[in-house]
């Protein structure tokens, strides 16, 4: 147990005691009476944050694979648009992208009667489809770049031996190329997923009620400033730690490389 031993150094014990005192002081002398009233809303917000995070990372990754592939080996008419897409997404702020989609598309759609009468209209009038679309595209843009490097980083001999066994191209991609590419960039993907978590509060600006929006509402309703923000920061830190742990799990699942 080296982890426990390294925690038992005297200066760390003092730091932990100080931190414990700080937490105790927060619990005792700050105002938490708003908590019971807003707890159900906060849980709902937390749920919204989590499902937006999961849905956008999964969809974004599915989009990133063809983007990366197109940039790595695609002909110019596929690789050029993919590269432009990644550059544009990575070169402009996410907030601007979200607002462009929400306000831009949101003001464009009602002008077409056939959209208004379609079955999708009840969804298109809400904010979350735009939030999901914007976050998905953003994740895909960043990951497309990562996957480009991942695909070109897989050893050529692996692909050649697969081909020499007569493996069909799609099977080769599914069984050899993609798994190795993903395994090489798992640490990066973990970091990017935490970045994606940190991007989710932006959707609060287009009226999606996730955990950040709940804390803003508490602040606006009760004029309590620090307590909701500190709790919010704690929630994000816990989620980020969980994502980190999950990715460490994934990394240990594959064969470990000795270096």
């Amino acid at each position, binding site marked *: 147990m080296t982890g426990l031993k390294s925690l038992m*150094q005297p*200066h*760390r014990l003092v*730091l932990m005691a100080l931190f414990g005192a700080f937490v105790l002081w927060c619990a005792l002398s700050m105002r938490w009476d708003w908590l019971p009233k807003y707890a159900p809303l906060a849980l709902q917000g937390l749920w919204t944050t989590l499902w937006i995070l999961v849905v956008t990372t999964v969809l974004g990754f599915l989009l990133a694979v063809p983007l990366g592939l197109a940039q790595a080996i695609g002909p110019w008419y596929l690789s050029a648009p993919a590269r432009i897409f990644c*550059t*544009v997404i*990575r*070169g*402009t*702020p*996410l*907030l*601007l*992208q979200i*607002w*462009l989609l929400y*306000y*831009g598309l949101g*003001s*464009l759609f009602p002008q077409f009667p056939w959209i208004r009468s379609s079955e999708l209209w009840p969804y298109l009038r809400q904010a979350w489809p735009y939030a999901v679309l914007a976050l998905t595209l953003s994740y895909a843009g960043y990951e497309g770049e990562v996957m480009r490097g991942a695909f070109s980083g897989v050893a050529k001999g692996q692909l050649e031996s697969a081909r020499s066994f007569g493996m069909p191209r799609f099977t080769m991609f599914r069984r050899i190329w993609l798994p190795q590419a993903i395994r090489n960039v798992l640490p990066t993907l973990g970091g990017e997923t*935490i970045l994606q*978590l*940190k*991007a*989710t*509060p*932006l959707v609060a*600006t287009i009226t999606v009620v996730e955990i*950040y929006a709940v804390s803003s509402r508490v602040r606006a309703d009760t004029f309590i*400033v*620090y307590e909701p*923000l*500190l709790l*919010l*920061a704690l929630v*994000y*830190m816990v989620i*980020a*730690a969980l994502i980190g742990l999950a990715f460490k799990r994934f990394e240990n699942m594959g064969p470990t490389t000795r270096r």
Partner: protein
Amino acid sequence: MELILETLGLTETAALLSLSPPGWGANLLRGLANSLQIALGAFGMGLVIGLFGAYGKLYGGPILRDLLAIYTTVIRAVPELVLILILYYVGTDLINKLAQFMGYGRVEISGVVAGIWVLGIVQGAYATEILRGAIQAVPPGQIEAARAYGMPALLTLRRVTVPALMAFATPGLANLWLIATKDTALLAVVGFNELTLETKQAASSTRSYFTFFLAAGGLYLMVTLCSGVVFARIEKWARRGQPSLRQGGL
């Protein structure tokens, strides 16, 4: 010029984006100037914090090292938007307490200063990690040689460590600069008149959302692409004298 605009059907767009008052171009450019000012200030402050932080992490005592580890971990795990709010409130509270203590009344803090303070602390955490990695990548013999000649610590930093770490730190710092320019957009949420907020105001008062958001996107993209060129130059300059791996020198 006007003929081209008319054939493309862009006359209205050009009128909206023109620099003179009925158009909103001047507002956008002012917002861009604000954004760049905040980004530059925050990047500079981040570099200073990062240099001290990296030195503290590498050569500091155990307590300083643990404190810096907490700083970088917390800052990198909490969304920038939340940090901006927390640091903004903490900063204004502190300054007002200080002003009261010294006998002045309430102080109004300018948006630019608050933005630089908030983003600078965020950037500092990332810069600390980047510079720590870069310092570690400098061959230790170079620093030891400087020390063996009796060079004072500051002179070693200026003449040996910083020039040698530039080559390793430039790609990370280039990324950080791009993050700084894009993070200024978050200050729109707190109500600073930087490019994104100016754009939104222009867009919602003219109802032509696509025009303005695309124009602002173009401006941001221009900044990104220009910075890419500049940082490529800096990296090339920082790597002068290093053998290139491309030409098969191995």
